[in-house]
């Protein structure tokens, strides 16, 4: 049954209030204005007054405009017809091709019963040593990339999308610059994965409410694929834009802000989305990688802070590299025991030595004297940064482990790296480091 109402009594921000009885909470409506029509969603009921957020914004909405209620919540089409397609934040095609209306499902499904979750145990290879070796990405993990504006976080996201061996890739862009959107499309096209990719793109020029819908659309579509047994990789960028959109709506609705203007339910809102990452017991999985730009590079800002409490670790992308300190994959222990016997040993030794190298660098910068051991650490640090940490390095896990061994052998004696003897014997690369004396002299100069 369709219902029409036209008694608009309030227009503020992106929210319109209309007199309309018998409307369900969360229900969807279409508002028709001089500019065309837009979807709207019920966000508050008060007696016969219904407040809706208008997806395309309220510019040009008049008190004489008409709303048609659809009697259902937000839905999205799912299924194989979506593959290779690009949509906007309201679910309309952005690629000039016809609309898809197959297998409509409600967005924002209820939470998954924890009993029906599996313990994740499959590694997702990315070809990036800082991820594969040191903080392995695990199927069904939810992991943010903490970064700041200007860092190549979208490039990193696209690379993971290309190299992770997922059945379906879903990209959700929020507040994306148009160039970035084109770049994503180009990268995926070149990489030959566009055929198994679905994009929901909200660009910075689009109405803010549509930004709020992007994660829900992506996750609802992804969830359906996962239920069919597919392994889905969902990429979201940038969740800070999403949180800012939440803030905007909350303030218009006169909610009391809790921290820097963000609504008190920011944690819940973010968690509801991130928790969609799942490994179903008896079906497929969804892995979720999201970019979070930290305003002012401040990790205590409410958005990265709340995110960190929700996600299973985080990657810090700084100066074009994934930081070894602070970056953490909470699920890595569940997969890196079974890859190769030296994986964990290398992971710990390389990071500990790199930490020591940083201390030596600090000492050097403060003008303290450098011991021969310091010199070796400095040399190691340079090699490690160049051959492992650099984002341009693109090698599979075993090759990366071998390369770590080579670097270690070049800089240290076997006894200095703090790895168990049995593992060193099995993996120490044969041509042992020759005298590193001349290079040490160089580094000192």
């Amino acid at each position, binding site marked *: 049954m369709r219902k029409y109402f036209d008694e608009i009594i309030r227009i503020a921000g992106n929210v319109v209030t209309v007199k309309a009885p018998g409307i369900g909470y969360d229900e969807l409506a279409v508002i028709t204005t001089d500019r065309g029509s837009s979807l709207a969603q019920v966000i508050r009921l008060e007696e016969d007054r219904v407040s809706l957020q208008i997806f395309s914004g309220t510019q040009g909405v008049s008190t004489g405009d008409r709303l048609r209620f659809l009697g259902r919540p937000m839905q999205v089409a799912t299924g194989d017809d979506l593959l290779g397609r690009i949509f906007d934040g309201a679910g309309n095609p952005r690629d000039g091709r016809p609309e898809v209306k197959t297998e409509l499902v409600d967005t924002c499904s209820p939470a998954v019963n924890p*009993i029906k979750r599996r313990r994740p145990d499959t590694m997702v290879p990315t070809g990036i040593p800082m991820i594969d070796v040191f903080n392995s990405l695990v199927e069904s993990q939810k992991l943010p990339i903490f970064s700041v504006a200007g860092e190549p976080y979208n490039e990193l996201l696209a690379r993971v999308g290309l190299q992770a061996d997922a059945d379906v890739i879903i990209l959700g862009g929020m507040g994306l610059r148009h160039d970035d959107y084109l770049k994503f499309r180009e990268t995926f096209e070149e990489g030959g994965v566009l055929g198994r990719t679905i994009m929901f793109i909200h660009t910075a020029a689009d109405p803010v409410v549509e930004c709020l819908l992007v994660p829900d659309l992506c996750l609802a579509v992804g969830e359906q694929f996962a239920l069919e047994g597919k392994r889905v990789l969902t990429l979201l960028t940038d969740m800070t834009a999403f949180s800012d959109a939440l803030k905007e709506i909350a303030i218009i609705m006169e909610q009391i802000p809790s921290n820097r203007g963000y609504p008190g339910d920011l944690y819940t809102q973010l968690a509801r989305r991130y928790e969609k990452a799942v490994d179903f017991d008896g079906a497929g999985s969804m892995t979720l990688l999201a970019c979070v730009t930290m305003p002012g590079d401040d990790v205590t800002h409410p958005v990265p802070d709340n995110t960190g409490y929700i996600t299973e670790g985080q990657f810090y992308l700084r100066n074009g590299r994934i930081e070894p300190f602070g970056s953490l994959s909470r699920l890595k222990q569940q997969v890196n025991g079974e890859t190769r016997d030296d994986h964990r040993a290398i992971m710990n030794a390389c990071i500990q030595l790199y930490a020591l190298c940083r201390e030596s660098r600090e000492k050097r910068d403060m003008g303290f004297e450098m011991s021969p051991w310091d010199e070796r650490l400095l040399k190691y640090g340079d090699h490690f940064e160049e051959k492992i940490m650099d984002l341009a390095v693109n090698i599979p896990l075993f090759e990366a482990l071998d390369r770590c061994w080579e670097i270690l052998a070049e800089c240290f004696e076997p006894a200095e790296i703090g790895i168990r003897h049995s593992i060193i014997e099995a993996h120490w690369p044969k041509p042992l480091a020759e005298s590193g004396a001349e290079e040490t002299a160089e580094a000192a100069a």
Partner: protein
Amino acid sequence: MNGQIVAVYGSLVTAESQGRIVQNAIAFCERSDGARLLSEVVRVRGQRADLQVFEETRGLKVGDPVDFQENMLPAVLGPGLLGQIYDGLQNPLPRLAEDAGFFLKPGMYIHALETDTRWDFTPTATPGEKVQAGSTLGTVPERIFTHRIMVPFRWQGEFTVESVADPGAYTVEQEIAVLKDASGEAHPVTMQQEWPVKVALNCSRRRLMPKDPLVSRVRIIDSMFPVVRGGTYCIPGPFGAGKTVLQQITSRHAEIDIVIVAACGERAGEVVETIREFPELIDPRTGKSLMERTIIICNTSAMPVAAREASVYTAATLGEYYRQMGLDVLLLADSTSRWAQAMRELSGRLEEIPGEEAFPAYLESRIAAFYERAGQIELADGSVGSMTIGGTVSPAGGNFEEPVTQGTLKVVGAFHGLSRSRSDARRYPAIDPLDSWSKYTGIIEPRKVERIKDLLRRGNDVHQMMTVVGEEGTSIEDFVVALKADFFDNVFLQQDAFDEVDAATPAERQKFVFDKVLSVADMEFDFEDKEQARKTMVEISDLFRNLNYAATDSEEYKKTLSLIEEFIATRGRKA
């Protein structure tokens, strides 16, 4: 059908009723498709009641009927709670999964106890006996415990036992006794009863001063910042500092009868880990699976937020119930900040005047009231039971100067503050030994603990100084103090949660090793230079670390210990 909805805003519904409205009573909002959504009255104004709905409110309409009840949100108590996995409203999740599949279904509620299981009842009360709320009428064996069947706690006054069932197998719904009240009216008793979760349950002769150490087998806790049975403690820490790992270790190794894990607004993955691992882990004290002594209440972050608020109370009520049987219960709440946030969300929707960081003004009193539910009690029959509450706090930005951490610190007996710098340096457990405190006395003499704390403080001072003047500007005496502090930190405070032996150190072994470590710290040395000092301390640290990894009384253990004793006997100045 005694009311109807007039407004919906997020999880808050306002309903109008001409009948009686009871504050904090439950009500059902009936959606047009027939689903009955459980909710709770949180405010009454005139004939209007504000309800917090424990489910998503999607689809509710103005005019939908509301069914107001008279009773408050209850927990169901009886045999069969142990080993269960519940959501925040005490729905058994495995059975929800059987009926609803992958997803939770709004409006679907399942009775918390199996109604067809038969329990072997042994009567202990005799007809004619005078009893009151909490008196034991009989017992049933539940897993490894003797479960007392008690007179319903909410019954007031004195009763006379009219009849008690014969020994035999009964379900929780069958009558096992009939009691007569003072006016001669007969009341049947079954093995299950209900209790409102938000009211503290305590039918005891008196509350005791808690002082029996609760051994968690985490060295830094038991030796330095102890917790006692019936006490309270909190673990605040930024994300990634290891709060949850610490809680998980405690839930495994704690020397206690029953563990209740309340996963409140945290990651589902962590609960899954517990759910999948516990049934396979053997409790060394009983030889049975850890699940036998565990109850999991999980309301993960994606589940409806109002039920999250209820979940910690449900957990506390179940804990209090087993305490009434003379058992020692440990309630681990992870995380109380999510619970506080749930209160904040509701308060915001109610448009209450906000306090600091928009938390409601009653935040502190709610936190205090929750922790006050812990305690050691002496029951009417003289036996003693306890409930210990350990809550994690997730302060925004890792800053402890926020309302939830501060409100918690005022009311707990021990504070285990996790520090980012320790976790970054991989010094686990990342409890900061300089900031943390405990008001309780543990397994180590306080005098000895003070000496070690003093050493750690001085060591820290020297380290601070060294960052300015460098190693060369530090005197060898100071340098040795720093080395000794590091030594204690490395070999005693730090513990490898993933090593079979090191993960859990029993009390006796802790005391023994503590004394050995103390004797090393008391040694005086004549070092020629700093290099020699460092080498010596590295040597002894290495010995102790090997000792930590060696099973008690194994060959390795004895060998390492004799080397340590030799070191202590021969290396100091006085040797």
